[in-house]
Every structure is written in structure tokens, then in C-alpha cells.
């Protein structure tokens, strides 16, 4: 019991600090990648290659004046950043980030809390984040902030459905919500869930962009129309907390994608990491593997942000309700039938054979979807009248 408590406390401390440092570096990465994509250099003055820029930004935010609008609801105004900050950090607790570490007192699972309810917990906690944004928008007593808050609530609730539905596909295949089990299954079958669940991953990725309020779905902020949306009235550390919340949500979403679809901390093309006794070397290597996978998604988030323009509000809602929701329902139906057929009729267990068979179905569906999208039947932009 003491061992469990001490190990958990140490893990909480390490994970919290890793996320905070990761978020800090992510803000720098965002700015530098953005600059590189625009043929600039980006912040490179503070420290080597600008590595200390986040520290300078943090210091600036500590020293800045805390403004408080006269007509704002003081209690909620202060509470809102906390409400959005805390769930953002809580969600990472159930994500396993490396293989178990052997110590003198016993083996430590490299996950803060190996909850049996796994990603149900993530869905539950991450939907609390919307309260922070809505409260911020409402408590500011500012039209733009309120509009941002309203948009955020509508958008996050809409895309949560598609997000949840796409994870149902993982549930169907894994038969379990515990993330350690999901990873173990992918390792033993030697086939990551990206193969049998490609389409679910695509839907998950799009919904994750919307859930984290990143471009092309950053309507709650929309600096062109709403100044800065829900955090218009915030300054100094309160603003910083919203910022950290956004980026740690990104980290969690990326880590979740790596876990659910890309085998978590599994090192590809080897069984060495998942079989035999745990060793510190394995823990380190698997941690690096997990970090790299997460980094790829984080980079993609940034890449998408600096490429695509913002959706119009009706396009956003149309994509969520008219495309993604029916698509996931249709997909789950097909997938359920296919899995039932393979398991009950053919008596297969999840393994490479079943993965590739399902992968074939996914590719067929994906090709059909892309063909349909490309014909302009689903997502459409504004249309101008041709002038004579």
C-alpha cells in the first residue's frame, strides 16, 4: 500500500512536470514551425534556438497586470480558467506511456492510474473542459466572449458525439476500455488498430481537432471575428492557464490517438518490448517510442493549423451532424457485422489475419468516402454566382 502510494505520488509529479514542460516546448514548436512554414525563422533569440522563449513568456505572464472587467462576475471569472485547466491535466492520468518499470519493491506500471474504465474516464473529464470555456465567456460580460463561449459549447458537444462514436469502433474490436488492455491486445496480435480501424482514426482525428479548438475548428477564438473569443477579457496568468489547457488537451488527444490506434508504447516490428521480464531499458525505449508517436500527431496538429483556413459556423455544424455522425453510425454497423462474422462464423481471434481483412473493408469504405467527398457531395464551400 505504501509502495503504491509513493509510486503514484512520484508518477503524478513526473507526469505533471512532463506535461507542463511539454506544453511549454509545444508553444515554442508551434511558433517556430509556423515561422518555417512562412519562410521565417521564428523566435530564436532567448537561449539556444529559442529554447528558453517559453520561460521568458511564462515570466512575462507572471509579471503582467491581472485585469478584471468592472461588470464581470468576479467569482466565475476567476473560476473559469481553473475549470478549464484542471480537466486538461487530469485526462492524461489513464494513458500508459511506457512498459512497466521493475524496481526493488515491485513492478511499477507506467501509467498514473490504470483505471478499469479507461477512456470512458477521458471522455467524461475532457467534456468538463467545455464548462471552463462557457463560464469564461459568460462571466466576462462581453459580447464577443459570450459568442465565443456559445460557439465552444455547441461545437464541443457536437464533435464529442463523433469522437465517442469513433472510439466505439475500438471498443468493438478490443472488447475493453482499459487502455493498458487495448495496448496489450495490439501488441499480442502484432497489428495496430490503425489497420482494422482506419476510418475510425480519420474520424477521431477530425473530431480531436474540433475538441481541442484548433484550426480549422477554432471558432471559439476566431480572432478575426471575435477578437479572441472566450478569453478576450483575460490577461496574465489567467490567460496563460487557458493557453496551457489548450495545449495539454492537444497533448492528451495526440497521446490518445497514439494509444488507441498506433499501439501506445509498442515498438513497431519487434516483440522484444512486450514479452519477457520488464527492464529499465525497455521502459526507456518504449517511452521514447510513445513520445515519438505523440510528437508526430502534435506536429500534424500544428501543420494543419498553419495550412487551413477557419470553417464557417454552418459548415462546422454541417460537418459534425450531417457527415461525421451518420458516417460513424454507418461505420459502426458495418464494423460490428464484420467483427461478428469473423468471430462467430469463422471463429477467428484478433490477429494479423483479421486485422488485414478488416483493413480491406476500411480501405474500401475510405475510397468510397473520398470519392464521394471529392465529387463535392458532402462538405461544400460557399458558391459564387458566375458574372457574365
Amino acid at each position: 500500500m505504501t509502495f503504491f502510494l509513493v509510486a503514484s505520488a512520484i508518477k503524478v509529479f513526473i507526469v505533471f512536470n512532463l506535461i507542463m514542460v511539454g506544453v511549454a516546448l509545444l508553444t515554442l514548436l508551434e511558433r517556430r514551425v509556423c515561422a518555417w512554414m512562412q519562410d521565417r525563422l521564428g523566435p530564436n533569440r532567448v537561449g539556444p534556438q529559442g529554447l528558453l522563449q517559453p520561460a521568458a513568456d511564462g515570466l512575462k505572464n507572471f509579471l503582467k497586470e491581472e485585469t478584471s472587467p468592472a461588470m464581470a462576475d468576479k467569482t466565475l471569472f476567476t473560476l473559469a480558467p481553473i475549470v478549464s485547466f484542471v480537466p486538461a491535466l487530469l485526462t492524461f492520468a489513464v494513458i500508459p506511456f511506457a512498459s512497466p518499470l521493475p524496481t526493488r519493491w515491485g513492478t511499477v506500471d507506467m501509467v498514473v492510474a490504470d483505471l478499469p474504465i479507461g477512456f470512458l474516464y477521458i471522455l467524461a473529464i475532457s467534456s468538463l473542459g467545455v464548462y471552463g470555456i462557457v463560464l469564461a465567456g459568460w462571466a466576462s460580460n462581453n459580447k464577443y466572449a459570450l459568442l465565443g463561449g456559445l460557439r465552444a459549447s455547441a461545437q464541443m458537444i457536437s464533435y464529442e458525439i463523433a469522437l465517442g462514436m469513433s472510439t466505439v469502433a475500438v471498443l468493438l474490436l478490443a472488447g475493453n476500455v482499459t487502455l493498458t488492455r487495448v495496448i496489450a491486445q495490439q501488441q499480442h496480435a502484432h497489428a495496430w488498430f490503425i489497420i482494422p480501424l482506419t476510418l475510425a482514426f480519420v474520424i477521431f482525428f477530425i473530431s480531436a481537432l474540433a475538441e481541442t479548438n484548433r484550426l480549422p475548428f477554432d471558432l471559439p477564438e476566431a480572432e478575426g471575428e471575435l477578437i479572441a473569443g472566450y478569453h478576450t477579457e483575460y490577461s496574465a496568468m489567467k490567460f496563460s492557464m487557458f493557453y496551457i489547457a489548450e495545449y495539454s488537451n492537444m497533448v492528451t488527444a495526440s497521446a490518445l490517438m497514439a494509444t488507441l490506434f498506433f499501439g501506445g508504447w509498442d515498438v513497431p516490428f519487434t516483440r522484444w518490448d512486450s514479452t519477457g521480464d520488464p527492464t529499465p531499458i525497455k521502459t526507456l525505449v518504449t517511452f521514447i517510442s510513445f513520445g515519438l508517436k505523440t510528437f508526430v500527431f502534435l506536429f500534424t496538429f500544428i501543420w494543419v493549423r498553419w495550412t487551413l483556413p477557419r470553417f464557417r459556423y454552418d459548415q462546422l455544424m454541417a460537418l459534425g451532424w450531417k457527415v461525421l455522425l451518420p458516417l460513424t453510425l454507418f461505420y459502426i454497423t458495418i464494423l460490428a457485422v464484420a467483427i461478428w462474422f469473423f468471430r462467430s462464423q469463422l471463429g477467428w481471434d484478433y490477429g494479423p489475419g483479421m486485422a488485414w481483412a478488416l483493413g480491406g473493408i476500411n480501405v474500401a469504405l475510405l475510397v468510397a468516402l473520398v470519392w464521394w467527398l471529392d465529387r463535392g457531395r458532402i462538405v461544400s464551400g460557399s458558391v459564387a454566382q458566375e458574372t457574365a
Partner: protein
Amino acid sequence: MAIGVKVMKRPTRQTSYLRATLKGMALTFSHLLRPKVTMQYPEEKSSKDWTLSSRWRGTHRMLTDEQGRAKCVACGLCPQICPANCIKLVPGEDEEGHRYPLIYEIDEFRCIFCGYCQEVCPEEAIHVGVHYENSEYSRDRFVYDLERLCAQTHPVSTLWDPSDPRGE
């Protein structure tokens, strides 16, 4: 229609942005790897793509003769032509009858850097310079006196020449 304006044909039917998205992603990624255009200013003040023009009209410089005296003969043409009225000139005369400026001051805050003073000067004494780093700690330091004008070392501007409009 102005020359060189590309008129895009707008889609008249509903279109998908799927291909456009992928194309955009490829474009941004290719830019990620391209050489950057940023000049690291205080360390790097000119590059092969960008140098300050030799016709740049910056803060003034007074040229001097071999004895180190200002070439100015205090003819009064520059304060006369100056549209911003920023040159203060008090002429003096020595025992041999040579005119020289007793006071010659240019208020760089009032100056509009038109370069008329250089153009009108019969002795090629006052020049506008190819120079742009002029920061000071107090405002009164921006009134340059004769001593300071003579002490400047930056290159002088080659003004636009009507007989050689392209600077060849």
C-alpha cells in the same frame, strides 16, 4: 483590368475542398524545408538579396577639405531651399575674405530627407547619407551641429540623376 492581375474562376457548382486541403498541406510542408528569408538584423545588415540602396537619403554628413575644415562656404542656398526649414546657418567671414559657417545646425526631426540641400550645394559640402541607425537617448541630440556633421563617416547618397535615370 490592370496588367498582371490573375482573375480566378469561381466555382459555380458545389465543390469539395478535399484536394485543395491536401495540396495546401503539401505546400506548407515544402515551405518548412525551404531556405528562410529572414535577415538576423543586428548581426547581419545586408545580404546578397538585399542591400541598402546607394540612393538612400538618411541623416546628413558634411564633407571636409584636406585641412579637415568643412567645405561649406555659407552661401545660404541650403536653408533657402529646405522645404522643412530645418537648417540653421549663420555665415562668418575670415580676414582673407573666405566665407565659412559660424553656426551650421540641422534639426533631423524636422528634416524630411528630400535631399534638396545636397542637390543645391555648389561646393558639394552637405550630403544626405546612406545610414539609418540614428537612435539617441534624448531628443536634443537630434540637432546635429557642424562638428557632428563633419564627424560622420557613413557613405553619402548618390542622388537621382536626370541624365542617368537608372543609375548606370
